[in-house]
């Protein structure tokens, strides 16, 4: 799966699961400030990513995720 496919899935999850505005979502968008997603929302997103991509994201790695791009990179790294 290439980066654009992961980005596209990520966008779908943010819109469908968290109810975000698609126009605000890009790699550099930060969850807390740009997208107004709180820490609980980030945990929800990571759980949805685990289900969507069949990967496991340990809590200690999840804590470092602050932007959409970082989340995409993490998923790609996990997919190996």
């Amino acid at each position, binding site marked *: 799966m290439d980066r654009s496919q992961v980005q596209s899935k990520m966008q779908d999850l943010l819109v469908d699961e*968290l*109810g*975000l505005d698609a126009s605000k979502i890009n790699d550099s968008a930060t969850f807390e400030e740009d997208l107004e997603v709180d*820490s*609980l929302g980030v*945990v*929800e997103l990571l*759980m949805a990513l685990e289900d969507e991509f069949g990967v496991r994201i340990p809590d200690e790695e999840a804590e470092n995720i602050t932007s959409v791009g970082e989340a995409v990179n993490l998923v790609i790294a996990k997919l190996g």
Partner: protein
Amino acid sequence: MRPEDRRVVVTGIGAITPLGHTVRETWEALLAGRSGIGPITQFDPVNVATSFAGEVRGWDPESVIIKREARRLDRSAQLFIGAAQQALDDAGLDFVEDESDSDRAGVIVGSGLGGMLSFDTQLKVMISRGARRISPLAVTMIIPNEAAGVASIRFNMRGPVTCVVTACAASANAIGDAAEIIRRGAADVMLAGGAEATICEFGIGAFNRSRALSTRNDDPRRASRPFDLNRDGFVMSEGGACVILEDRKRALARGARVYGEVVGYGMTSDAYHVTLPRPGGSGAAKSMKAALEDAGLNPGQLDYINAHGTSTKANDVTETMAIKHALGENAARSVPVSSTKSMTGHLMGGAGAIESIFCLLAMVSGVLPPTINYETPDPDCDLDYVPNEAREARVEYSMTNSFGFGGHNVSLIFGPADA
């Protein structure tokens, strides 16, 4: 009568019930004697003894709450917020728009079981997929005070905000306690009410096992039959109901529409048994007497009682005895007593609030809602239950009773707007 300086009036009402998505729809159905009870659609009730309930059908939470917020709320909190928005709009109050009185505005929400649907869902997730799959929102969706906190945030009400958890008496307590907060000067406006949403396998199954629910599965609309000889238990419903309480001087100064005044609040405990009422109903009678005393009224001045009237064997006969005990035989026999649970079913944590609204509307409109499904009189229930058809009547003072598992007894008395 209360001293002139701190009297409490109702200036807004809101409700979402099995009979309608607004107070108006609910009230019209009530006066038409319609039942809001039907087969359960929210889950497959194949494994539980009762297959019907009072569901709120076709209500879209996103009509009130944006999707990204709605999905974070348990259904009980969604229903409360929906009803609360109606009540605030009805009162013409908006503390987001005008923050000047936000610190003087508070919230009390009554709840029986908190976020039971979320608990049911998340427990199943944990059992099937492990504790790591529990939603990060589970805690906030299950705590019974979720609706109170979210209402405070959404409506920018920053004064006293709390939650009462006294089972089926909860939202009557919420209104009584909120009125007391205004009376003592700690707030000028209170959003007070309750909500419940427990129509899931665990909720129905658990109440079945406590032997409280009707199992008249072949005839759901006729299952809630308070005071009828053939009653066999209460009918679980869901919904939210809310009133705006306001310092009377403030309400009059801004020219608010006033539905009525909270004139009496009584609260006692049976100290007897967690589910059964104390035989003879002395606890409930003392609650009614306390409310009458608080209001400074004689029993004969009550023009209408909205009974707790659950349609359980024990409640209806005990409440009848309690009314006689509290009012005396003569006043008890002359006052109309109806149970609107015959139509709404039992909103549990929302019951006290919706039934308070019915008392206020009976006063405003001069019509008493009936007790439907009243067919075979029970010799032990021998009051005027306003059987089957709404009745015109002049109502100056009305009382509602709410009793809860645990032994809680609560009575509220409402008086006229222009006293």
